[in-house]
């Protein structure tokens, strides 16, 4: 039966009052969980998984899927308002979103995040509906060498995130890698740089690093001069204008394509695609220098990409039972709990269930938009809370966020340590974004490198003899060369930046 007919049947199941209610509940709880710093989709699904056992499989999975994309959306709210990206996918959103909020444009920034998430989420669902089986086959062509090449492509973004000094940006990136190698070696299990400490052996959790580098260091930087930094002017225009929407439409579409296709690949998390989409927009923009200063494209790109990845990730999950990231891995647990075995037979054996879940995701996306646009005004008012009250709350929620991931006091220590490091990094102008990107890419890069070298008995030739990896590495090299060329092509801009630095 063609996909469209099956989808219509799915809609017939999804719009039953019971399923609609659970889709709404999932989206609502997801948004709330996303707004709470540190509690990302993974812990949200994990927390609610046992509670769904009282439900039949279809409403239960509909609710958990709603929770997943609701949380992906909700994470942008704290990133924009208080510079706490609760998950990696919101880090690029914070770069421009927080600047917009400080300029009194929290409303348009939040609305842009909601609209971009909706557009990208819905378009990706169209992709999921009509191309799932074909696209799933594509992801199976990716072996370790292709993954390594893909990670190299993602790393090419670092050059554009380096800020004023290329050298400092690269140092920050390598420091990110170095943090990632602390703990057990992914292949051999050998403890590296743990100095006999059991907590260090389990590695440094990247959420604690992000909370430290962004939220804690932000507060430490603001209190040092006793500046009571509260936005006092009238909050005008809570929604983006038509002109704004026209401007961000191409960004949303491009980010959807990037997010969806990268989301098909297991291991390619929304965090990675958000960075790649942000970087792509910066490269294509007529005013790349404005990225990072607070522009709507800087919010639309990562938000679109991470929501597109969220939908894209359902393709390998449903078609092969391969989760693209930790949140989907927990969701896979949910599938298994109900005796549903994701894989090629899922679409045949449980067609009603699969198509009802897909249809409910369309409905859930609309619900998210309806739910969140009216809340924009309420969230935007948060920027007017006096800083002496806001700062302690940010710190308390940050610390809870760090603690919540693994339930370890050690992670609070890590967040505080990186808060101090982040404060120093701001002072010495070492950018945090390359560090975060390399930190999240490091494990998969190292694992795929080692697996590839085992396959080729030690030779690097394997990366250049397989068509997909060769293409990806070539694209990465071209992008890096292009970035370096544009960086050094305008020496006048470089000297302006240097002059600014010396002020």
């Amino acid at each position, binding site marked *: 039966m063609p996909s469209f007919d099956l989808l219509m049947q799915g809609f017939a199941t999804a719009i039953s009052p019971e399923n609609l209610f659970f889709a709404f509940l999932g989206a609502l709880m997801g948004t709330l969980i996303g707004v709470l710093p540190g509690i990302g989709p993974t812990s949200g699904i994990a927390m609610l998984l046992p509670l769904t056992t009282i439900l039949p499989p279809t409403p239960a999975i509909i609710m958990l899927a709603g929770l997943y994309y609701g949380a992906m959306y909700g994470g942008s709210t704290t990133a924009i308002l208080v510079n706490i990206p609760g998950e990696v996918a919101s880090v690029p959103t914070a770069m421009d979103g927080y600047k917009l909020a400080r300029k009194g444009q929290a409303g348009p920034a939040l609305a842009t995040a909601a609209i971009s998430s909706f557009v990208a989420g819905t378009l990706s669902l169209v992709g999921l509906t009509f191309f799932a089986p074909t696209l799933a086959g594509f992801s199976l062509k990716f072996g370790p060498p292709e993954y390594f090449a893909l990670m190299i492509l993602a790393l090419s973004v670092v050059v554009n995130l380096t800020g004023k000094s290329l050298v400092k940006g690269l140092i920050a990136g390598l420091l990110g890698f*170095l943090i990632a190698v602390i703990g057990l070696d992914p292949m051999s299990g050998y403890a590296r740089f743990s100095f006999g400490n059991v907590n260090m052996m389990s590695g440094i959790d990247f959420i604690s690093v992000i909370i430290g580098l962004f939220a804690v260091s932000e507060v430490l930087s603001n*209190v040092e001069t006793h500046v009571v930094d509260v936005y006092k002017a009238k909050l005008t225009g809570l929604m983006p204008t038509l002109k704004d929407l026209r401007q961000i439409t191409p960004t949303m579409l491009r980010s959807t394509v990037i997010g969806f296709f990268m989301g098909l690949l297991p291991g390619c998390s929304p965090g990675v695609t958000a960075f790649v989409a942000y970087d792509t927009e910066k490269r294509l923009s007529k005013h790349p220098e404005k990225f990072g200063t607070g522009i709507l494209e800087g919010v639309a790109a990562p938000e679109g990409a991470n929501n597109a990845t969220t939908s894209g990730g359902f393709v390998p999950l449903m078609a092969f039972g391969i989760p693209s990231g930790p949140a989907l891995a927990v969701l896979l647990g949910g599938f298994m709990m109900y005796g549903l075995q994701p894989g090629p037979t899922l679409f045949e054996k449980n067609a009603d269930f699969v198509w009802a879940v897909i249809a409910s995701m369309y409905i859930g996306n609309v619900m998210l938009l309806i739910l969140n646009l009216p809340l924009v005004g309420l969230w935007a008012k948060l920027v007017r809370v006096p800083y002496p009250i806001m700062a302690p709350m940010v*710190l308390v929620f940050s610390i809870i966020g760090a603690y919540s991931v693994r339930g370890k006091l050690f992670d609070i220590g890590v967040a505080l340590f990186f*808060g101090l490091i982040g404060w120093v990094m701001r002072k010495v102008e070492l950018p945090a974004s390359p560090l975060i990107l390399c930190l999240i890419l490091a494990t998969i890069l*190292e694992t795929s490198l080692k697996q590839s070298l085992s396959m080729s008995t030690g030779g690097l030739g394997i990366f250049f003899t397989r068509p997909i990896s060769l293409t990806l590495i070539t694209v990465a090299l071209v992008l890096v060369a292009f970035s370096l060329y544009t960086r050094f092509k305008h020496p006048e801009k470089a000297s302006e930046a240097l002059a600014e630095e010396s002020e």
Partner: protein
Amino acid sequence: MKKINLYMSIVLSALSVFVMVESKKMPAEIAGLGMGPGVLPFWLGAGILLLSIILAVESLLDKRSPKKVFNISEIKNMGIMFLALVLYAISVDLFGFGISTLLLVFFLVRRLGKYAWWKCGTIGVIVSSVSVYLFRVLLEMPLPTGIVGF
């Protein structure tokens, strides 16, 4: 910035040498798995060392007048705040999350906003009670209760 860059390159060079020395103590190859756990960290250390040297050379060649990056009063204010956070992290385990949060919020609101004592206390009670209810009760997160039990 010039001096700071130079100091930064010295600190980073020391770190990278330490990383390289420690990496050399790890196996370079593991039978059946190929590349050992020490290889990547070694090259990371080498990369940081190389970039630190470039940064040092860049800062030595920099002809611009130096800019003051750190000043004593800033460091003092930040240091007090950071110390409060460290004490908080220790007291969470010892006395419990709720009471420690109340004290931290009270201290920070008072220090940053110079509000009246009762206002700081009220904000502290609200923030700690709401977070305990939300995270410990509703979301069943095992936040430490300490000797106070709150």
